């Protein structure tokens, strides 16, 4: 009996140890793309045939599902375009895996990046200087839009090749505009305010039925409504907070004037409904209850899917009477490609990333439906034809009024503070002056 007990306990102890050791085993690489798998087979074929085998280059990207398939098409086109390298794509949506791989010795050769990642990864010394690599290969960085260069640069050196760009512009309901006797959308914020007041209607209970002023989506109201007045949250260096600037205060005063006119509670309720039902058939814009909507080009696809009958147009976000040249202003964000310092095949990585950002990008953009960061495509008719609203968005891109992303190390904290203090203003808890002064003080302690 005792012997049996000892054997059982011994087996259990060994099993436990085995489980613990199994937990420490080297992590399997993420699921490899179809294109990469096929190319690896081609490489094996080349090896057998005795030819020079293409050098494998690993590429990790965030996209998954249908978008991952589109990314695979780009990889396939690159692999077919030359025989020196074979890119193996991996769909890795988990951001933690990038950090672990890049700070260890499992770094991929090319990675997809957001603007904030360019700042944080470069700050930790994890990204290769692409300006230096590009200059030694004769790369023309002038093909990229200026805000895209800004978003991917630290101290004048680029660390990411921009692929797509994201901007916001003004959608408007043509029927509501016509009902208030207007034929053309506003060109200044003052005109917009006037139209918004005339278009806003209340139901029998005093609740807002149609909203004129673009207070929803919240993120657009927080950014584009500020930028339209010439306000930005940081100075041109991308680092110094400017929350108490007069332009921001002007924007907040107009915003608050509208809220007070219809009642803060009533506006909150309408915005809350907008929030809960965003991009559903009950979306306030799709339901014909919103005159102006600041949103991205994807809204056109959402309209097509949810209510294709809505009669809408797209125009540049207005400037102000004092600064009409601000028309087309918007946040400006990119997805980019970077080469980690720990990449094993840097030349291949550069070859792929630079090809993708220039020759390979158009087909990808057409497939995925995104805007370019490459200036040479701003007038491309084929690209414009793939989304009805692209011509207006391209026009906005050409104004050069895109506002680059923040570059502070504590960007997320600053953005979170901005959200909190704008809430104080919008809810009438603090005056714009007090709120922005406090925000400026809090932000000045960030890095």
């Amino acid at each position: 009996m005792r012997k049996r007990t000892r054997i059982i306990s011994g087996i259990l102890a060994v099993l436990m140890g085995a489980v613990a050791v199994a937990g420490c085993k080297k992590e399997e690489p993420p699921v490899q793309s179809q294109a990469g798998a096929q190319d690896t087979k081609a490489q094996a074929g080349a090896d057998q045939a005795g030819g020079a085998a293409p050098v494998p280059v690993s590429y990790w990207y965030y996209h998954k599902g249908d978008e991952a398939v589109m990314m695979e098409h780009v990889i396939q086109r690159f692999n077919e375009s030359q025989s020196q390298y074979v890119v193996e794509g991996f769909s890795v949506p988990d951001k933690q895996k990038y950090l672990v791989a890049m700070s260890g010795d499992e770094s991929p050769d090319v990675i997809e990046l957001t603007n904030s990642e360019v700042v944080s990864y470069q700050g930790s010394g994890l990204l290769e200087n692409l300006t230096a690599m590009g200059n030694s290969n004769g790369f023309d960085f002038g093909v990229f839009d200026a805000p895209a260069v800004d978003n991917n640069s630290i101290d004048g050196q680029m660390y990411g090749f921009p692929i797509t760009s994201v901007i916001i512009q003004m959608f408007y309901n043509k029927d509501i505009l016509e009902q208030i006797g207007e034929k053309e959308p506003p060109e200044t914020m003052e005109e917009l305010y006037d139209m918004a007041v005339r278009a806003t209607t209340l139901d029998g209970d005093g609740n807002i039925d149609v909203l004129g002023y673009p207070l929803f989506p919240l993120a657009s109201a927080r950014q584009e409504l500020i930028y339209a007045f010439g306000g930005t949250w940081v100075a041109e260096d991308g680092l110094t907070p400017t929350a108490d600037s007069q332009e921001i205060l002007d924007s907040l005063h107009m915003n608050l004037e509208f809220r007070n006119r219809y009642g803060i509670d009533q506006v909150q309720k309408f915005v809350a409904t907008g929030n809960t039902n965003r991009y559903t058939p009950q979306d306030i814009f799709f339901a014909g209850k919103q005159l102006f909507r600041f949103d991205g080009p994807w809204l056109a696809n959402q309209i097509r899917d949810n209510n294709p009958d809505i009669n809408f147009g797209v125009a540049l976000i207005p400037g102000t009477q004092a600064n009409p040249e601000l028309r087309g202003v918007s946040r400006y964000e990119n997805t980019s490609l970077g080469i980690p310092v720990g990449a094993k095949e840097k030349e291949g990585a550069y070859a792929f990333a630079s090809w993708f950002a220039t020759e390979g990008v158009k087909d990808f953009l057409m497939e995925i439906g995104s805007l370019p960061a490459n200036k040479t495509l701003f007038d491309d008719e084929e690209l414009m034809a793939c989304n009805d609203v692209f011509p207006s968005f391209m026009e906005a891109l050409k104004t050069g009024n895109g506002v680059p992303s923040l570059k502070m190390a504590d960007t997320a904290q600053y953005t979170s503070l901005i959200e909190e203090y704008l809430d104080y203003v919008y809810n009438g808890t603090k005056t714009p002056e007090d709120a922005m002064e406090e925000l400026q003080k809090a932000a000045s302690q960030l890095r």
Partner: protein
Amino acid sequence: MRKKRHITRSDIDGFLFALPWLVGFVLLCVYPLSMSLYYSFTEFNPITDPVWIGLENYISLFKDPRFYKSLRNTCFYAFIATPINLVTALVLASLISRRFRGRGLVRTVFFLPSVIPMVAATMVWIWMFDPTYGFINNFLKWFSIDGPAWLINPKTTKWALVMMGMWGTGTTMLVCLAALQDVPVSYYESAQMDGANGVQRFLFITLPCVAHVIVYQAILNLINAFQYFTQVYVITTASGGSTSGASGGPENSILMYPLYLFHNAFIYQKMGKASAMAWILMVVVGLLTIVMVKLSDKAVSNAGGE
């Protein structure tokens, strides 16, 4: 003089049997706890190595207005929602402990919310709180009450959470039900013979007899309240208004302590500060538990229990 005890084969067998648990405990509890304590005195993010900074994380937390705000929000939920949930659970348990047709079905209906995944339930609640199309405001409209924008008005957000909490009291209700069924029927019979009415029977018999269970549930609910995360995380991320990814709701009115800890760790990448927050939370919950256990002992002795 104490006699030296030799290790027997039985001791070794016992140790081997306990080994799997010991290995798990050391690897999954002792090691992470020790590391988080160490990290709380360092500055580091997932990319860089920890740098020893002494008490700086703790000092910066005690100077941080959001730290206090998150603590206030959490205390509001803990000390408002917990008693409400307990009373709700006790009342429901009293109601469904009676014999009536369909009792099983009613019990199931009240318990059902406790087994629904929290994320799915919260998404449904977000829709129910919609000021225009939501069930709650439409229900209030029947009584000519103009409901608020529950999740966007900082004055109502925490109360919305309290309402959600009341809906999920099934587990507490079940424990109270078991306690109620343990109260000897003879007590009620004696009281009835002495002329005690229903309220008196509840106050002087039921309540003292189940007091120890209520206090125990209060401790558990309080500890859970200090770990309140999923619901606020879903609400703040599903609202779509945040570009920072670190929203605490309108005016940070539902920035709960664990949510702020999460923001520090995974959004602001300040792992050291987050670890310090975790240790402060552990101390607070530990102290609360000691107080509640003392109260529990008192409640049991007052009720004449063991």
